[in-house]
């Protein structure tokens, strides 16, 4: 799943003939003044300025400003760029033409196991949730393209009439093309607006997710996906992602502020069960972490050091199932080095470490981990005979 920002989404819409308003993405307000000299629409239309970042609830944060002229847009951009919101900083804003319109529609498409589903409503805009019952759904089987007649019929059923129904169907057919050809997972246009005087349509806002695994067949994808976790990545998360992109196997990290149980767990499946076990016991996780696919020891070491630096942690859960091919001895040597390094830097004071693991070279790996007791670590080591998530119970009962 890879969410992309509005700018790149608009670019893809343009490519597939979905009407979009005029827009520019800028990093420097002065650039807007220059663009204003070159583009009539910037001088003559009402404008909307939005922070072009993966920040939820932009409207409430004052990161969306509507109905501005060019000078006001300049001021708004100047005010937004550089603003810090939590861990995020606004680097870019998108300035778009605010089309005077008569009606707002809703148009979306999302993949499912057997194909995809097109959603249409003539009651779009902020009220769509309330009007969810009016949404007309059209199932599109995998690799089939519905005819324009079929889509028009769906549009009529959704309450569109006459020429508008035909035009909406045409836009929807292009949306389907864009969805199929760009390996999208979902696209939501809300609102799709119409100015009836000249029958001009425009997708005023778009949320688009593309399949990042398919990027090998999209040479023109010049964007990066935005954070998948509802906020922008922290420095530590970014650092681990950079390592992840370079290695065989994987290392992953998500910070969860406020928790006191740190996870240093192995495997995409098991790691989630460890988080569940903490939550089920009433604990709070300080992070989610996962390493798998027999990653190199230095990558696990970097992940370990990052986790040891999390604030206010009381326990570290070094958990994992019985590995199929991840070498326990090798990955544990990375963790052990990470622990030693962190301790020498003053971390891990009053932190208890709980270990449970099995897999290739488990005996050597667990023995090496156990030896850390001699170096003054508060560490508890268990082998495969300990049920996988029971170390969480032990930690929380200690």
């Amino acid at each position, binding site marked *: 799943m890879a969410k992309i920002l509005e700018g790149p989404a608009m670019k893809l819409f343009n490519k597939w003939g979905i009407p979009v308003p005029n827009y520019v993405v800028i990093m420097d307000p002065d650039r807007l003044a220059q663009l204003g000299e070159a583009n009539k629409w910037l001088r003559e239309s009402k404008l909307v300025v939005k922070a072009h970042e993966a920040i939820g609830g932009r409207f409430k944060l004052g990161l969306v400003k509507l109905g501005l002229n060019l000078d006001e847009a300049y001021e708004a951009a100047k005010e937004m760029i550089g603003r810090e919101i939590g861990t995020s900083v606004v680097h870019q804003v998108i300035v778009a033409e605010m089309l005077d319109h008569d009606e707002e529609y809703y148009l979306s498409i999302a*993949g499912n*196991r057997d194909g995809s589903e097109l959603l249409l409503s003539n009651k779009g805009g902020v009220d769509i949730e309330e009007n969810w019952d009016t949404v007309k759904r059209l199932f599109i089987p995998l690799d089939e393209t519905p005819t324009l007649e079929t889509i028009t019929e769906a549009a009529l059923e959704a309450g569109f009439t006459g020429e508008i129904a035909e035009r909406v169907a045409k836009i929807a057919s292009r949306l389907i093309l864009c969805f199929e050809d760009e390996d999208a997972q979902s696209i939501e246009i809300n609102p799709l607006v119409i100015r009836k005087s000249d029958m001009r349509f425009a997708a005023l806002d778009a949320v688009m997710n593309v399949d990042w695994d398919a990027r090998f067949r999209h040479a023109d994808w010049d964007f990066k996906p935005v954070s998948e976790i509802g906020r922008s990545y922290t420095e530590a998360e970014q650092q681990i992602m950079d390592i992840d992109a370079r290695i065989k196997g994987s290392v992953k990290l998500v910070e969860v502020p406020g928790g006191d149980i740190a996870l240093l767990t192995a495997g995409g*499946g098991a790691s*989630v069960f460890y988080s569940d076990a903490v939550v*089920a016991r009433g604990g709070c996780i300080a992070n989610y972490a996962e390493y798998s696919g027999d990653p190199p020891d230095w990558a696990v070491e970097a992940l370990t050091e990052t986790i040891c630096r999390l604030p206010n942690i009381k326990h570290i859960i070094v958990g994992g199932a*019985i590995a*199929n091919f991840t070498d326990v001895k090798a990955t544990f040597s990375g963790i052990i080095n990470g622990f030693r390094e962190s301790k020498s830097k003053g971390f891990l004071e009053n932190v208890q470490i709980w270990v449970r693991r099995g897999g290739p070279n488990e005996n050597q790996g667990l023995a090496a981990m156990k030896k850390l007791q001699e170096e003054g670590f508060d560490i508890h080591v268990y082998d495969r005979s300990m*049920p996988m998530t029971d170390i969480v119970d032990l930690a929380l009962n200690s």
Partner: protein
Amino acid sequence: MSILANKDTRAVIIGGIAGVNAARRMAQFDFLINRSLTVQAFVYPPEEGQQKEIYRGGELNNVTVYSSLAKALEENPQINTALIYIGASRAYQSAKEALDAKGIKLVTMITEGVPEKDAKRLRKYAIEKGKIFNGPSSIGIMSAGECRLGVIGGEFKNLKLCNLYRPGSFGVITKSGGLSNEAMWLCAQNGNGITSAVAIGGDSYPGTDFVTYLNMFENDPETKAVVIIGEVGGTLEEEAAEWFGKEIRRIKLIASIGGTCQDVLPQGMKFGHAGAKEGKKGLGSARSKINALREAGAVVPETFGGLSKAIKQVYEELLKSGVIKPEAELDEALLPALPPSVQEVMKQGDVIVEPLIRTTISDDRGEEPRYVGYAASELCEKGYGIEDVIGLLWNKKLPSREESEIIKRIIMISADHGPAVSGAFGSIIAACAGIDLPQAVSAGMTMIGPRFGGAVTNAGKYFKYGVKEYPNDIPGFLNWMKQNVGPVPGIGHRVKSVKNPDKRVKYLVEYVTKQTTLHTPCLDYALQVEKITTAKKDNLILNVDGTIGCVLVDLDFPEYSFNGFFVLARTIGMIGHWIDQNNQNSRLIRLYDYLINYAVKEEREVPEKK
């Protein structure tokens, strides 16, 4: 009994090194249960025609790599299963070909990061063809006592610990690869082990689902209960619950669902497998799955930790009701042990191996190379130079400061002698022909022999003989040489003479005799010889080879090492010539006709062949 994979399974692996590693793991299982090799062929165009070495216990098998699936199947028609390990960008095409192949019934994709659309299409295609497409991102399929597909089950020791050498009564279906192994272990520890275990992969749209395999397990009489491990996202677990609740099923169902933590995490925060994400309005949440499964009558412990107890409880009930007959424990000692490698056995001191070669000069098994015991970095640190390394590696001694200075000078005065001589000229011709450095230098090097530069060893050797056998009888030495060897090596020069001495010889002799305290019996002897030979003929002087040979005798180097000094020194020069020609971007050269005397027959007609 089992599902999907059994004793008749014969597999082709499509992909490179990861596939070969999997084949090796699979062969370990083949060895454990004493079945024939599961992997019969590889398909990987870049390595077409190669054979991969696969050990089944101590038995070495060579498995062929084909450039296409069609070719692999033509030569191995017994293949009925394909494992896809090839990269995500080619995985779709490979799997489709496999699904098209007539004899292949099951395609399991291990490849991760496959685009969703590709997986969706493959799923649909497999259904149309009436075949099974398992994966992507599957760790494989295990049928205890019958067949292993992929690295599922981990290392050899674990195969035994999880009782995978013989069938039990539990089926296992998981999304996660790591947890498939954990589940097999739990079934062995708390029950009697598994019949089959399938990892369907944690992607958003796996090719198969829990229901597909639940149906198969329901129809497999040996399977009495099934453990499924699911997670948040999608609706496969709900479908499994619906299947289980729809009618009375023969098998018991135990389930554990991951992702309940997402209820309390900050909104939008998702992690785990690609497919592990909640849909709109809580659709596919872990909690809704747990509820659905419980309502359908499955045993669903609150946490993963409760799975052990749940399996044990179901097992004991099945034992009690007689559905499962208790089986005598197999003595693990009866199971074969994986033959250790020679290295492993040697480490334990259980075997004596006669070494193939012996070295007395260097060892790089430690952190850094050691020359006759001395660490290279420490030699550098303490101010030793290349001359001392030569002393160590050629003569196993650290030279004294004076000796080092002499060695250094020998190399310096011999490094190059202009482009006209055979060695340099050879390298230059090669360089002009566009030959790379090592080969061009070798071309020059091949010139070193009896006529060019190769006289150092023999000069040293015979002067040393003279010192020993004819200490005060130079005419006697010369006479012996005349009768037994011929011209004295190291004596004589084409252009230099008494009147026109070789400056290098003069310098080296003066340096060694006047500026060092080296005892030089051999050099002194050669100079005496020179006095007599030059009296006979002006150019029969002690030449540079002779001088170096004698000095090296006096330095106590082994006599067969002497030519090495010339070879080493000239290598510097030849490399220089190669670089020089390359810098100049020299063209290919050939001899001008006027430099050749064409002493050949006149043009004439070729006679008919008799």
